[in-house]
């Protein structure tokens, strides 16, 4: 009996062994791809590396850079700036990175960055002064942060489901009992928390006091039961607004523009307490392997060509004042940017970037609210 099994197994072996040969040859093929895996790492050092959100790895943003270097910079992307920051804290080195203004003190304090030499930036004189001097962006050591794009954070709401002007636009809309469980917010203290701070009457252009933090956290705690989901990405927010899953969401200004473009009836609220103005920009790593190239990347992103593309394709304001002259009035109007940018920026509700300690405290409060504590 055992003998029979043995023969059967070996006979079976004639089939499966061929499979095994195939498997082995597939393995050989795999091994052949391995050098490819290792080899491509070498090409990195020639040009500077730009670490940014997926979506900004767009050659359209670098016409002047490409004109000079023949190719765009090396792109490395993250889905969330905070993940990128974690990666850099673990030792990952790039040339230029793309944080937002509220990150500045925390990022600066990590000791991972160096001031940018503005004399190497031909477009720097055209940058809005208010943006270039946002708190923390410039100090005695130099210019740590160069602004790139800006926009507004407010409530996008479905006019067909909520009404077109439900009792005056206000951050209080989010607290309306009848929309309980139909509200989504951005899952980061950098946005939602500050919107509540505005509603709480906190002067967000100053360093926060413990009482202000307490007041805002209290509002967050009251908002929590209203919320269906916290999410970090604009795609999920836009998707759920489009499907009617939620009727109101805190979003950035490009979301309502796109939704309207797709025929979804939404409106971007102008809360009477004021919307939040956000600004993101560029910082340079302290060990940037290609410092000259880093300055080229930053200068290219400040150029008028890039600004025009940024406004038209992304729907964001650009930091170069001259960029707005390149875009026709109709486009600007459709994007809600048909204002005098200088006035808009000067009147904007910019977040005062908090110290690492306060920011971390805020983040931790936000987490406990989110988990229901």
């Amino acid at each position: 009996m055992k003998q029979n099994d043995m023969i059967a197994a070996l006979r079976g072996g004639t089939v499966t062994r061929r499979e095994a040969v195939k498997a082995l040859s597939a393995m050989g093929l795999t091994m052949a791809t391995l050098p490819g895996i290792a080899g491509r790492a070498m090409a990195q050092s020639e040009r500077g590396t730009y670490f940014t959100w997926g979506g900004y790895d767009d050659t359209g943003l670098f016409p002047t850079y490409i004109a000079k270097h023949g190719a765009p910079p090396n792109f490395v992307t993250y889905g969330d700036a905070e993940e990128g920051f974690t990666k850099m804290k673990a030792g990952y080195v790039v040339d230029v990175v793309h944080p937002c203004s509220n990150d500045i003190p925390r990022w600066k304090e990590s000791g991972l960055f160096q001031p940018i030499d503005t004399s190497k930036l031909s477009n720097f004189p055209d940058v809005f002064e208010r943006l270039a001097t946002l708190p923390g962006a410039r100090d005695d050591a130099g210019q740590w942060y160069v602004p790139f794009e800006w926009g507004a954070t407010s409530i996008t709401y479905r006019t067909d489901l909520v009404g077109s002007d439900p009792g005056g636009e206000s951050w209080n809309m989010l607290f309306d009992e009848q929309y309980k469980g139909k509200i989504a917010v951005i899952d980061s203290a950098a946005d939602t928390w500050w919107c509540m701070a505005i509603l709480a009457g906190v002067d967000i252009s100053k360093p926060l006091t413990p009482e202000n933090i307490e007041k805002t956290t209290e509002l967050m705690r009251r908002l929590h039961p209203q919320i269906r989901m916290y999410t970090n990405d604009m795609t999920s927010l836009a998707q759920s607004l489009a499907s009617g899953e939620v009727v109101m969401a805190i979003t950035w200004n490009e979301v309502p523009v796109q939704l309207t473009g797709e025929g979804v009836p939404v409106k971007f609220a102008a809360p009477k307490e004021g919307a939040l103005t956000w600004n993101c920009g560029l910082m340079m790593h302290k060990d940037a392997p290609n410092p000259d190239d880093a300055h080229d990347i930053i200068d290219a992103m400040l150029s008028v060509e890039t600004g025009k593309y940024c406004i038209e394709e992304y729907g964001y304001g650009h930091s170069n004042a001259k960029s707005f002259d390149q875009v026709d009035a109709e486009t600007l109007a459709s994007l809600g940017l048909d204002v005098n940018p200088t006035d808009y920026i000067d009147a904007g509700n910019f977040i005062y970037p908090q110290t690492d300690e306060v920011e971390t405290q805020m983040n931790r409060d936000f987490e406990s609210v989110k988990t229901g504590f």
Partner: protein
Amino acid sequence: MNTVAIIVEAPRAGFWRRWLMRSEALRGYLLLSPTLLVMLGIMVIPMVGMVVLSFWTQHAGNTFDTTLTLKNYTDAFTRDMYRILFMRSLGISLLTTLFTVLLAYPMAYFVAFHVKRHKMVWIILMTLPFWTSYLLRVFAWKIILGYNGAINSGLISMGVISEPLTILLYNPTAVVITLTHAWAAFAILPIYVSLEKIDRSLLEAATDLGDGPVARFFRIVLPLSLPGIIAASVLIFIPTVGDYVTPSLVGGTDGYMISNAIQFQFARGNNWPLGAALALSSMVIVTAIVLVYVTVIRRLTARIG
């Protein structure tokens, strides 16, 4: 133990060769060495580093106070928030594991015993859906479970409900459904592998002894497929405890898990030592649960057998 005897008795000629051939342990370790060395080589330093880190204290910025302290562990075990998150995570993972294994077993059984030809094609067919990005599958689940989604539209058109149900998405149920789908292949494959090796003559013997299909299944197939069930449940239970992506995509406000808390400490929370302590604690708890589970199952089957 018996190596001593071998050394004493071994004849001079071919001493080492014989010793090598006879010493089970040595041959075993020789075979094991490539895997063990690779794994140790990659893992030792990071893991030791993490353990040490969990006893440090985070300073503002990117620096640590390297005085050893148990504070992170007392935080991890005494704060209500973490206790509840632990329980929630374990509950979700247990449910996911249970459903995944229960649903996958009949399928694996079907392929192992009832599919005569092209078994591998069936197996590959069941892994194919998982080659499309996880992200896309999550979005697909949102279409199915969502407010204007497939299920709600279906129920409304059938007149079962008048308003879309909102209890399908953005809650722990959605997390369990999504995970049960996502880990299906990880249950089917190990169970199939262990079913496939069951000696068919045992089944015939049982039939000859008058066992019906049900008795045959419980007396032979189930006990013999236990290695596969154990492998599947461990392979699903452990990683789902550590998953933070699914809960944050479909879990809504109650979908925040211990792994999200760990991820938070490494990102915005900026407290790596606490994150490491939370992770190590969860690792210890999960390992303990798995050990108890494996022991209990083995005991039970030993009794049945």
